[in-house]
């Protein structure tokens, strides 16, 4: 086994061919699902562009009724999000159910006492994860991930919440690339053009919260991560030292979110160290 094209991403380009990309990701979903012996997928549909792209890819791959979308609004979730999610369900003809997570999240608050906004956001993300994994057992399905490469690298997600999934077709696509793929896949325009938001509280906006525009940070990440250029080269490319350092710090600080829990080695053959099998072991 050996190299791909030497020119790929070495220049930090974010361009991709939507047709081939769709084919690769569709094959990925089919292969990784069917090798488990399962036929169905479950995913949370937020009304945002990431879960829309994931479900449009899935709908090109398996029969739409085998896709079980969960619309999981909280009391403060935007009506527009729910409407956009429903438009996806109608467009694709997939199975869907809407479950209000307010009683679960509020019940948590009643039991443990009031939590701040960030912790409440985490509780919501984990309530959704709990529901998705429960539905995956009910439907004999795998949970399809919807985290993109930008948010995975910046650690902009809840560990064991929205970051949890069995397979993620879009985890190697930056937000900017998700947008270009969305157009090719026919994702409704209202979803493609609205400001990105985790929708954990009213008027939440990813870019305000992160402090970066996606277009800008994606270009920087493609340089730092994919092309592995030096800090000096990134500065030459027009990025401020402050932004580069902030992004780098964020990536380093959130590494724990991209790893399973680490295990203390005290035996001859330890999980994660020298007990080494791929997840697709014997499939």
């Amino acid at each position, binding site marked *: *086994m050996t*190299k*791909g094209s*030497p020119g*790929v991403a070495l220049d930090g380009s974010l*361009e*991709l061919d939507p047709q081939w990309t769709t084919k690769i990701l569709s094959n990925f979903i089919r292969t990784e699902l069917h090798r488990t012996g399962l036929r169905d997928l479950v995913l949370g549909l937020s009304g945002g562009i990431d879960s829309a792209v994931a479900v449009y890819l899935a709908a090109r791959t398996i029969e739409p009724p085998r896709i079980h979308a969960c619309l999981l609004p909280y009391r403060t979730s935007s009506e527009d999000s729910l409407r956009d999610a429903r438009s996806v369900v109608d467009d694709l003809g997939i199975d869907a159910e809407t479950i209000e997570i307010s009683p679960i999240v509020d019940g948590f608050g009643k039991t443990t006492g009031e939590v701040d906004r960030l912790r409440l956001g985490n509780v919501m993300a984990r309530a959704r994860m709990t529901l998705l994994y429960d539905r995956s057992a009910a439907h004999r399905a795998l949970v399809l991930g919807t985290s993109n490469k930008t948010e995975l690298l910046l650690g902009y997600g809840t560990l064991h919440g929205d970051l949890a999934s069995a397979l993620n077709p879009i985890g190697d696509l930056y937000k900017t690339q998700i947008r270009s793929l969305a157009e090719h896949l026919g994702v409704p325009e209202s979803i493609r053009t609205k400001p990105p938001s985790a929708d954990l509280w009213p008027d939440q906006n990813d870019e305000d919260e992160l402090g970066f525009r996606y277009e800008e940070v994606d270009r920087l990440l493609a340089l730092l991560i994919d092309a592995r250029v030096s800090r000096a080269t990134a500065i030459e490319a027009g990025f401020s030292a402050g932004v580069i350092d902030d992004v780098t710090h964020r990536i380093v600080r959130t590494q724990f979110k991209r790893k399973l829990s680490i295990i203390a080695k005290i035996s001859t053959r330890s999980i994660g160290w020298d007990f080494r*099998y*791929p997840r697709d072991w014997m499939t």
Partner: protein
Amino acid sequence: MRDIRVALGQIAPRLGDFEANLEAHRRAAREAVGSGSDLIVFPELSLTGYLLADQVPELALPLDDPRLEPLLEASQEIDIVAGLVEDAPGHRFHNTALYVSRGRVLHSHRKLHLPTYGLFQEGREFAAGNRVRHFDSPWGPAGMLICEDLWHMPCAWLLAQQGAEVIFVLSNGPTRGAKPGREVTSVAVWRELLQITAQFQTTWMVYVNRVGCEDGLTFGGGSLVVDPFGRVAGNAPALDEALEVVDLKSDVLRRARTAYPLLRDENLELVERELARLRQLRYDLPDPAASTKKDKVV
């Protein structure tokens, strides 16, 4: 060589499932017999899958293992090129390619260059081979290389110098997506490499790359045959399983070697001299010329 018809067995092996892969080989071989092919070529590690890690010793077989019997049996009808993990003397586990013909293993090649960088971990999993030899097949002189071997120019050169007229390249090349208006990444770069190698060595190049997905890693496929002029003579699609049949004509080899007598004109003594000098510099060895001179003085 004589004219041969080759089937490119572009399959998606099942990871770690030797029996299922063996059956897939037999199925494809039967199909290739039906198409009038003289031989069928499968990808690198076609009997085991790629991301083996700790499964390497569990799947390794000595080449006289009875579990290979069904493959030998199938080779009574058609020659087969396939890949597996070899349990070699001293329990060195090699990434090995086999040429199986008329019920026996006619030749084997142990992967020389084990990529151990980026996403590749082969240097950790396998022992490296240390010889490259051509062999006489029932239809003519041939050689085998495995994937990364082709990226090291001397491998194909040595085979051609020994007399190989057809070089098989078994591969597990992953794709890294595609740029706008371009093919998936592994396909275009491999085609260029194979075309250049074919032109330099004036040999037929038969490249078979796997497809399918392991732990999210997608293999590009795009198997192809390049003639000794460097022209694509036949190819399989990217990403999908396929059985592509291509005719390799001896006349094309003759014409290419007539038009471009590169092999005839190779200066082995020059290469040997320069190589000796490089070796001396690289490993800081005593200069053989200098010591001879000194001996004479004494």
